């Protein structure tokens, strides 16, 4: 036994020099951090913090991190590092019946790559349009006879118009697909080419690109933080964000959202982290890595939310001042007071005085009441935050083109590093499966994968593309990842064996996993995942799914119209949720049939990857 441990590799491992390696540990850490830190850290976490009682949300968030996020993450890194193959190889090594988990992960990574790069396509479009002053979303274009602005722009506002009309050219209904938007197609092709150039030789090229794409967002976040904190109204935004409201913890929805946020934020169960750690040297402290990366991810979320909310506080203050100014102007025009005779601070007193002395004229003005709280309450997450709320805030900042370029450059880098992880989750298993002969160069394989993804993603450049992206976002990833993560924990701890896994970790890191790890792996994490999964199913099936459409003909325009998904779309949603999961029972059945048929064959003739792993015994 001891003679085996003295060697660097265990017998039965594939040849050392064939597998690519990281240039140094920093590259590996940056890649994992870049994969984990994505767009969700910028536009999902601050929104959740704000909706769920500010500082109080951090409590369920950190509890979920400790009991669910870090243990699962450690399992992924350890198993990838130990078995030194991508996700399909890992699962077929643990048990041939679990090969479906690996294939399902591959599928999910593929689907997520499709729509994630579409978001990057939109980011690139905004980035390209930021190099002009004034910014194109700062003013409405004039209408045909040039007497005023276009009506759609007039009734909503300039940023909404630029997003829904100039960028998406959106239709009012998901049934109306409209035409392909050639501008978006150009941006899509450019995005996929950028992804291709970075993953062209696997980690050899991503490892070089990651130095820039993973560190640049931190630089920009710091710049935005400093700028944001010096803007007027930033402190109101931050106070509003972090004021804890402890009573919200009684709502079970908070705990569910905290757990799902941690889960998706760390990009678990994609197979990307398994792929990354499979390129590590075998004796590497994966426990320390797991804790470090998970903590860095959460700290980045907090850091980003401070920067984001100082800018949002500035925007809310600006909107509040605009509201006051509009009211003041109405009063001045009605009563013919001298220009600028009422300051914003005097507004309240003046308003009260006039209301008591001349109520009918004041009522006739129909003034809107202005409260800073209302503007701070207007929260947004996802694409709404980046492309509507933040762009409007940037318009009011001095030197807006520069800030817009920095902001969209940062979003692009963040998304790109996450794309690397997604693509590795697709690429590594395909390369490990050895479907294609060795002579086919890696560049060709990556090229074909990128081409297939690019062509498939063309459906998102239709006019109804953004509705489809919402569907993919809601249904393709969430449920499937929960299932895969559950099978991951069960597969490693119960099928592979907790004792054997702890032995491996001890061999790799030099320390045996302590009680915390064993308790979370054996009981707490699987239980949590099961609870989250069941709650998710209950929530999704409770009511018929709806979507919000941008319909200029709607009575309440610019409020979005809520519509039900038509039947065929609901069918696609179900298919997206089930297709990746189906591989698990599907492959298990396939293997069962194979075994039954192959019982008479010579066991030596089976290829390596199909054999369950057995340690060499004396």
């Amino acid at each position, binding site marked *: 036994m001891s003679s085996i441990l003295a060697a660097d590799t265990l017998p039965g491992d594939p040849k050392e020099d064939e597998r690519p390696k990281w240039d140094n540990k920093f590259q590996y850490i940056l890649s994992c951090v870049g994969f984990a830190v994505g767009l969700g850290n910028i536009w999902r976490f601050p929104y959740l913090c704000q909706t769920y009682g500010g500082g109080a949300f951090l409590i369920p968030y950190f509890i979920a991190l400790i009991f669910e996020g870090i243990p699962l993450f450690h399992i992924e890194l350890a198993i990838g590092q130990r078995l030194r193959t991508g996700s399909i190889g890992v699962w077929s090594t643990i048990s041939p019946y679990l090969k479906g988990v690996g294939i399902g992960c591959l599928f999910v990574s593929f689907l997520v790559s499709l729509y994630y790069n579409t978001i990057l396509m939109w980011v690139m479009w905004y980035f390209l349009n930021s190099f002009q002053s004034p910014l194109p979303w700062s003013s409405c274009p004039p209408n045909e006879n040039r007497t005023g602005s276009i009506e759609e722009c007039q009734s909503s506002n300039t940023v909404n118009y630029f997003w829904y009309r100039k960028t998406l050219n959106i239709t009012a209904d998901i049934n109306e697909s409209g035409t392909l938007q050639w501008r978006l197609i150009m941006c899509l092709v450019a995005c996929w080419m950028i992804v291709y150039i970075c993953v062209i030789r696997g980690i050899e090229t991503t490892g070089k690109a990651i130095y820039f794409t993973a560190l640049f967002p931190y630089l920009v976040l710091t710049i935005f933080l400093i700028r944001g904190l010096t803007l007027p109204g930033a402190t109101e935004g931050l106070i509003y964000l972090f004021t804890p409201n402890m009573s919200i913890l009684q709502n079970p929805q908070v705990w569910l959202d905290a757990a799902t946020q941690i889960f998706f934020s760390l990009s678990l169960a994609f197979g990307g982290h398994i792929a990354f750690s499979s390129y590590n040297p075998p004796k590497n402290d994966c426990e320390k890595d797991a804790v470090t990366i998970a903590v860095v991810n959460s700290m980045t979320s907090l850091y980003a939310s401070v920067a984001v909310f100082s800018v949002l506080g500035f925007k809310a203050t600006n909107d509040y001042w605009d509201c006051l100014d509009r009211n003041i102007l109405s009063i001045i025009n009605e009563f013919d007071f001298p220009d*600028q005779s009422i300051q914003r601070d005097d507004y309240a007193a003046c308003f009260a005085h006039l209301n008591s002395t001349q109520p009918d004229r004041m009522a006739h003005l129909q003034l809107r009441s202005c409260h800073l709280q209302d503007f701070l309450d207007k929260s947004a997450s996802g694409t709404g935050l980046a492309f509507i709320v933040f762009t409007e805030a940037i318009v009011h900042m001095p030197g807006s083109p520069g800030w817009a370029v920095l902001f969209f450059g940062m979003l692009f880098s963040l998304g790109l590093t996450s794309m690397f992880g997604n693509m590795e989750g697709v690429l590594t298993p395909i390369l490990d499966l050895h479907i294609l002969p060795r002579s086919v160069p890696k560049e060709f394989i990556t090229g074909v994968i990128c081409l297939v993804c690019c062509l498939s993603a063309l459906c998102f450049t239709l006019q109804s593309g953004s509705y489809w992206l919402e569907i993919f976002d809601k249904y393709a990833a969430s449920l499937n990842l929960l299932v895969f993560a559950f099978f991951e924990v069960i597969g490693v701890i119960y099928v592979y064996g907790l004792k054997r896994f702890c032995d491996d970790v001890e061999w790799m890191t030099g320390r045996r996993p302590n009680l915390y790890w064993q308790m979370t792996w054996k009981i707490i994490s699987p239980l949590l995942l099961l609870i989250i999964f069941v709650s998710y199913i209950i929530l999704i099936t409770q009511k018929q799914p709806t979507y919000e459409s941008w319909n200029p003909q709607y009575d309440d325009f610019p409020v979005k119209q809520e519509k039900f998904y038509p039947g065929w779309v609901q069918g696609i949603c179900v298919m997206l949720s089930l297709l990746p999961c189906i591989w698990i029972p599907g492959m298990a059945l396939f293997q069962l049939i194979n075994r039954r048929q192959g019982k008479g064959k010579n066991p*030596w003739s089976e290829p390596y990857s199909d054999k369950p792993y057995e340690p060499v015994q004396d």
Partner: protein
Amino acid sequence: MSSLRTKGKEMRDIYLNEIILKGFYSDRMLVALLPALSLVTVIHAQLCQPGAKDAFKVRLSLKTALGDKAYTWNENEEYLFKAMVAFSIRTFSSREKIEISNVLLCNVTKRVSFWFVVTDPSENQTVPAGEVQGAIRMNRNRINNAFILNDQTLEFLEIPATLGPPTEPSTPIWVIIFSVVFCLVIVGIVLLIVSGIRQRRRKSKASTEMTDVEDKCETMVTIENGIPCDTLDSKEGRTNRAFAAGDEKLTPL
């Protein structure tokens, strides 16, 4: 020459007489015209009223536009305004006889806002609203510039401003940036692919050289103990059935 001088004197006398006569007559005319004049001002006041026919309200926001450099609105500024309106009407329609006195201002407030109306003396009525509107729209830029204001700070209520045409450069800026990025990426991809092909060619050349060398070495070490080494290379190893005959580790007693 003396005839010229006397002629000049005569002209001066005639001229002086005319003035005296005119003065005498103007006094009389004044007395006669006084009721007529007051009637005219009353009519003018009726013509220029908030909400009157063909009257427009104007609103200026001087402090908003100019801040500290704001000038005060006084009669001289009103005079300039009347002149600009008269100029606009003259250039727009062919009413050559419009004078500054034909533009009437009233209800000047501290805001600063007032109403104005344009009368046409030849027709003895107000210039129609449509004509005034057209005239102002045509010359809006010059009126704005005369007062160092813009469309938002010098408002003619009910006269919409003509917005400037959208300034689109011949190639949109995003196309330029896109082309730059695209070209860089294409160049990068080509470089990487070419270097990959070169690396592979170098490796295959090196490996053919290596196999030549190895062939020579292999012939020396291939055979050991009469058994060729490559057959012993299988991963799983071979069990020697002779030694694994029985499961007993202990010899029987």
